[in-house]
């Protein structure tokens, strides 16, 4: 395998990892599989298009505004939709996310049409390839994605491991009833999980759109990142990271050596393989299975 191929794998893995962090967060805390995650990521990218249009002279402000909107988006989704399903069967909650996904898809086309947008062009940024090693080049935006993924994962790890609210999120995921009995407001914890989830998804969407633009098909990336989350085990962030690497490697290898058409199906083939051998994922906990 050439170094360039490895670099491509790392970039793709970073994208998948950044996106799948949101799946893991929401799942781990509230046991809801958010099938609208890809669409929420796409909306995050479109919001950047909007803020870039408003503040084309001030990219930092536009980026900050879009990032904050990403956080607010999750809080709103929780408060308006998911909140009413707390304590209901998980089935209903998952179905609602499917409905939300289709709604967001429709809305985004109504608002932004099917045309492709380039927020980077609005800022007047170019996205030149850089040589990180002799013979290995990746775009600046891709580098930023890798860096951001590392930062986001480190921050999430520290947050979940060492802050009281992080510990509470983990606790609520394990035993919501006991969490409530220890004074934790489940609604607050769930809303926070949704907020962080769409925040990281928006960051991914924003950077992807800076790299290669955004159009109505971006949501598919969210769907493809999903196997990465599951391969690692839905309740483990570290697992999501490793899962993303495995899926990205398989996908790039398949595109390179077998057939480019395989791109969409490979993540799911990897997933099916893992499900057959280790249904709880590579790093997930076995008892987690019972809750799904």
């Amino acid at each position, binding site marked *: 395998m050439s170094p360039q191929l490895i670099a491509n794998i790392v970039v793709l893995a970073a994208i998948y990892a950044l996106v799948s962090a949101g799946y893991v967060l929401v799942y781990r805390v509230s046991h809801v599989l958010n099938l609208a995650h890809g669409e929420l990521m796409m909306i995050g990218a479109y919001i950047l298009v909007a803020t870039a249009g408003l503040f084309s002279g001030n990219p930092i402000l536009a980026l900050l505004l879009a990032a904050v909107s990403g956080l607010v988006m999750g809080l709103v989704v929780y408060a308006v939709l998911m909140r009413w399903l*707390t304590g209901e069967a998980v089935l209903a909650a998952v179905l609602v996310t499917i409905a939300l996904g289709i709604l967001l898809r429709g809305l985004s086309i109504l608002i932004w049409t099917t045309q492709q947008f380039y927020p980077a062009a609005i800022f007047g940024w170019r996205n030149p390839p850089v040589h990180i090693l002799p013979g290995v080049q990746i775009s600046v935006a891709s580098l930023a994605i890798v860096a951001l993924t590392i930062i986001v994962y480190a921050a999430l790890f520290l947050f979940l491991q060492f802050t009281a609210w992080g*510990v509470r999120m983990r606790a609520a995921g394990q035993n919501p009833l006991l969490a409530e009995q220890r*004074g934790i407001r489940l609604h607050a914890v769930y809303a926070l999980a949704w907020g962080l989830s769409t925040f990281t998804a928006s960051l991914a969407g924003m950077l992807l759109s800076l790299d290669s633009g955004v159009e109505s098909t971006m949501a598919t990336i969210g769907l493809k990142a999903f196997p990465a989350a599951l391969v690692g085990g839905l309740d483990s962030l570290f697992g999501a990271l490793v899962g993303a690497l495995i899926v990205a490697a398989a996908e790039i290898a398949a595109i390179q050596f077998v057939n480019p058409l395989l791109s969409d199906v490979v993540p799911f083939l990897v997933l099916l393989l893992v499900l057959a051998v280790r249904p709880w994922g590579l790093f997930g906990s076995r008892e987690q299975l019972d809750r799904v």
Partner: protein
Amino acid sequence: MTNVPQAAPLLAIDDLRVAYHRVAVALHGVTLRVMPQTIVALVGNNGAGKTTALRAISGFIGVDDARVIGGSIRFAGRRIENEPPHANTARGIVLVPERDKVFPNLTVAENLTVAATRRASSAERRRLDELVFALFPALAPLRARLAGLLSGGERQMLAFGSAIVCKPELLLVDELSLGLAPVVVDDLARRVRAIRRELGITVLLVEQNVGVALAIADYGYVIESGHVVLEGPAGELRGRPEIQQFYLGLATGNQVRRYRALRERPANGPGDRRQ
């Protein structure tokens, strides 16, 4: 009311009725009082409704599909039926549950951190943690251990500890002795008394082991099939022949298995009373 209360009760439950899934009524009108700084025991057989009563006080969540359908629960004069558990914990009602009493995938220290204590500065949090380790010194060396790996006794101590970090005024304890060796139970019982004495915390204790319960409680209620069938000061209850016969295992024969059956037979005849 035969015993005139000297002070206002901390917890006053009147004619409490609770149903699961809207139809299965588990409590049929329970009335009880818990005076400040006392230890009250609620005893009864399996399925009598003890856990249900404590859960009703501490609050149900959606998945329980349970509701208070009648009567009232007053805590410090305020009505709290059907409030969510976190709100009651914030009021100072904290439960040590029967099962799933700790977070198994969190460490001992994290199990204490989790509690969202009302109005507590970080200094006070530290003081509360220290208090827990002072009350239960056995936990101190286990701080970094996953709670799922603790022994039954250690787990119960941790459950008490994490409840105490919530700064309870009223501590609800579901099955202090379940699955624990007699020595451990004695030790825990002493600590419950210490918690009441030194921290001024009121305790409502549910037990199947009537001997243990009446040994540490000031006042006791006996509950059967969702009804309170007997109540009185603990010492007095201990001396009652029915209690000795049915709950303390001193029965000579076993023609009558339930206290209510004994009590009702002369009054109601063989026909069962319909609820």
